[in-house]
């Protein structure tokens, strides 16, 4: 009798929590879509500038989301561009060259770095910029500093995904090239690395997602409310997530609030696309595409 009661209790608790979570998620996303989707239009993005002029940078967009979207884009490209080479190389080192104590030492450091709150990384980037400013007058909190700080943020993820992707290659494949006289580097370059590309690529895409959504780091390292499209790496810039944060607390009128909903929907769509892409890569055997002669 008691068993039966426990059984029913646990079952209903599990269903309750599952449904609660799902419905909360649907309420959040639904609310955003209902409020945000009707605001989507070209003028939301480009304001009163014509899209062609804006995209070719012939005219600045002063009232639309375009500068924020371009800022986010540049930021993501830069930070992932900076983090990927280092992350992959360190991941390869961890998977193929390091052993024993050295390996656990390194992975401990990466785990700690992965756990450091993003605002602390932002604070680090900010103090780095200020310290450098005392020597090089041109350096302020800016696009480059934000990109660097974001690169620090995603570096441990890139290292770990690369490492796991390489380590999960079966040993038959691992031995093929050495048996044919490949050196360690040749084995990595021709067999192991290409084989782990799908895993690594999905890791890179998730890193892109993290860079695109992060707000805490960029808040301290150079994002501003209004800047236009950044003219150089050392300019301040706008970004979508910061725009959403900014609007949520200080919209001036109903129209600005609408643009906030619009920006949130756009960011949601971008992140969903990135996420689906990573998912697709992970599940597809992408090597077919990569290896065809």
């Amino acid at each position, binding site marked *: 009798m008691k068993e039966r009661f426990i059984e029913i209790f646990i079952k209903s608790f599990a269903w309750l929590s599952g449904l609660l979570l799902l419905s909360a998620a649907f309420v959040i996303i639904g609310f955003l879509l209902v409020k945000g989707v009707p605001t989507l239009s070209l003028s939301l993005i480009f304001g009163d500038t014509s899209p062609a002029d804006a995209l070719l940078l012939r005219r600045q967009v002063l009232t639309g989301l375009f500068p924020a979207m371009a800022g986010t884009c540049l930021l993501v490209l830069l930070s992932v561009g900076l983090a990927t080479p280092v992350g992959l190389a360190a991941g390869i080192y961890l998977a193929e060259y390091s052993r024993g104590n050295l390996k656990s030492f*390194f992975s401990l450091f990466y785990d700690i770095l992965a756990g450091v*709150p993003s605002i*602390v990384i932002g604070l680090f980037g900010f103090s780095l910029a200020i310290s450098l400013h005392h020597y090089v007058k041109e350096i302020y909190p800016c696009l480059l500093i934000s990109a660097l700080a974001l690169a620090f943020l995603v*570096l441990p993820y890139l290292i770990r995904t690369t490492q796991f992707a390489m380590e999960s290659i079966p040993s038959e494949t691992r031995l093929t090239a050495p048996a044919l006289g490949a050196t360690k580097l040749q084995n990595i370059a021709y067999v192991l690395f290409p084989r782990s590309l799908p895993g690594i690529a999905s890791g890179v895409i998730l890193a892109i997602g993290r860079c695109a959504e992060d707000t805490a780091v960029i808040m301290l390292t150079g994002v501003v409310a209004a800047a236009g499209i950044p003219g150089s790496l050392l300019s301040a810039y706008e970004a979508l997530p910061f725009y959403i944060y900014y609007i949520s607390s200080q919209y001036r009128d109903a129209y600005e609030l609408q643009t906030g909903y619009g920006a949130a929907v756009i960011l949601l769509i971008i992140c969903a696309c990135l996420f689906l892409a990573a998912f697709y890569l992970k599940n597809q055997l992408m090597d077919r595409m990569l290896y065809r002669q």
Partner: protein
Amino acid sequence: MKRECFAETGFLGAAVLSASLTALILIFMLFLGFPLFRGGCFFTLLTTPWNPDKGLFGIYPMLAGTLSIVFLSLCWAFPLSLGASALISVIAPTGFAKFCKKTVQMLTGIPTVIYGFVGVFLLVPFIREMFASGSGMSILSASLMLSMVISPTMILIFTDTFESIPASYSAAADALGASPVQKLLYVILPYSRQGIFAGLILSVGRAMGDTLIALMLAGNAVAVPGSILDSARTLTAHIALVIAADFDSIEFKTIFAAGLVLYVFTTSLILLVRIIGGMGMKNR
């Protein structure tokens, strides 16, 4: 052979560079917050209130704010995640379980700022009307939204643990005629104890490190909160609010104290997870 050597050095260089960042961040915090350590001032900071008008720069209220928001959000998120993972791994029919898991995976990809945004316009007014006390910007609102942010990851860790139980255990339970719930209670949960604990700790780290939810929803008052409907400020939000441009003012130095506290906390959590993981290896 030269190329081999060159490449290995390059890979090693990247590994060392990345690892040194971890140390570099700590060194920066220590160096810039260093003046605070002289005369035991650092520990005074951890126990005194914040009131720059009166020359008080303690971060005790933020420490209390962080701990209460993290604790409360785990109070919501932990049972919810445990229940949802049980549903996904054991109880729900396969099709629905798959759907749930896909949805949960999607949820991990939603930007935090979006949770915050929806919180400001949906949850805060709701809480304000519901409890008719305070502005709605409160520990309660922040912890509810934060639990939405940390639950998906926690569920994924739990379901992974549940599903990693050796097939022979599971088969043995089935052969003895155990119902799914009995299997969960007597086989899966005891076996997954360490995984659950590790997932819990990692979630504490995530909750503690989150800035935006608290910044947008908790109200940022600098008093030590007395109830869950009070406004509060976390260490992370404090850093975001006090950021300034000089190295001289005491305000500025105290945010390094806040950064240092966060760094030390999250690092100890990682170490704790490692120790648990190590114990798990030995036990199995």
